[in-house]
């Protein structure tokens, strides 16, 4: 070989300057479990762009769809309960729908980022569990700020 030029395969991550801030996909997923979608989904999007993942635009689309879908489901749920005068005892069952949607989006983003993260580790450096402290800090701070007692926060961002 005359030079060290390497052919780039399309699914290889192309990390930029923020590449060193990328975390393993399970860390943002953990943030969904302990904090909420408002931290998890933007984090996944940041990870995708910093990683230079070939699925970064799709991940962004999923995150945007996640928030829009969550809002639509929450509004729809309230509208159904109000228009059909349903007993509020059943609200617990209805609330499962937006939660399920949030879980679906989170796992979709997690699965989408697993392969690029693995390739990043193969071609660049191990990712480690960066960001874990942020999850712990947010897990303590957010409840202390009382955000979870705000029903709008819980419906649209949790």
């Amino acid at each position, binding site marked *: *070989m005359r030079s*060290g*030029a*390497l*052919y780039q395969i399309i699914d290889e991550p192309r990390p930029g300057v923020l590449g060193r801030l990328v975390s393993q996909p399970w860390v943002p997923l953990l943030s969904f479990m302990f904090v909420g979608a408002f931290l998890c989904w933007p984090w996944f999007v940041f990870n995708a762009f910093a990683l230079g993942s070939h699925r970064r635009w799709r991940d962004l689309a999923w995150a945007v769809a996640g928030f829009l879908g969550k809002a639509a489901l929450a509004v729809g749920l309230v509208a159904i309960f109000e228009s059909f005068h349903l007993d509020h005892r059943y609200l617990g069952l209805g609330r499962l729908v937006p939660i399920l949607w949030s879980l679906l989006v989170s796992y979709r983003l997690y*699965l989408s980022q697993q392969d690029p993260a693995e390739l990043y580790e193969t071609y660049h450096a191990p990712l480690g569990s960066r960001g874990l402290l942020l999850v712990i800090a947010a897990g303590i701070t957010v409840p202390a700020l009382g955000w979870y007692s705000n029903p709008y926060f819980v419906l649209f961002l949790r």
Partner: protein
Amino acid sequence: MSDDLEHRHWLGLARQQLTRGDVRGAIEILRRMLGEMPDSASGHALLAICLVQQKRLAAAEHEAREALALEPESALGRMSLAGVHLARHRARQAEALYREVLAESQEPIALRGLAQSLEQQGRKKEARAALDEALALEPEDVDTLVLRGELAWRERRFADAEADAAEALTLEPEHAEALILRGHLLLRRGKIEEAREHALWALRSDATSRTALVLLAAVKARQSWWLGLWWRFNTFATGSQARIMTILLGLWVAARVAEQIASLLQASGAATGISTIWLAFCAYTWVAPGMFRRMVERELEPVHLSDRY
């Protein structure tokens, strides 16, 4: 070295790595080669074959199409694209491509691919005929023998599978896939220790063999029913992470709905019971995969790679 000679040298080296089971090594060689010679259709096709083995199917399809754009008549290019179609379960498209290659020359490798695409469509009799045809062309082709044995195993014709595995191992005693097939047959007969030895033996020949690891995991699952549950759950989900997630989410919905209904019926004991079972299940799915992996890893520690690898 002239460009053509250099091209063939690197392709040969990549093929050698691939035959030895070192897919990552083959990819590295091809990346270097294609960095210098981006117009090599064979390089792109071979890279596609490697990427299929790593299950990087989008990239594999891109490379196979690149190979065909550079050399539309390339048999290797068509077979690499057919391989991608097979991996994506687009059996009819794969079949068409293999038939195109076979119309030009009867090659066992294309017949093997054709057999796999036919089997995916449930046309097992035709698949068997294609493999018999390949063996008529090259009676000592171990890869074809193993594929025919695997087909017989899936069709529960165990005696035929045993015969093909035995013949393949007589011809090539260290053939990883033949060892794995024999291992599965032994496991079926309850010979756990012998099956384990076959899995480890196969891993000596090809340390990256997923199928050998699957066999070893199946052996370990038989030895520990507690961790075996996780393995059976995984097998049920056919190892697809997306399917596992879907099943887990489905179970979560079922548990939460049951819990809510129990609360509405004011059966607080039942609601607590459901929550506890769900919590135990979560703890199990969190802990079991790691424990199971460590158990398999411990088993792998004393494995020494064969000199050929």
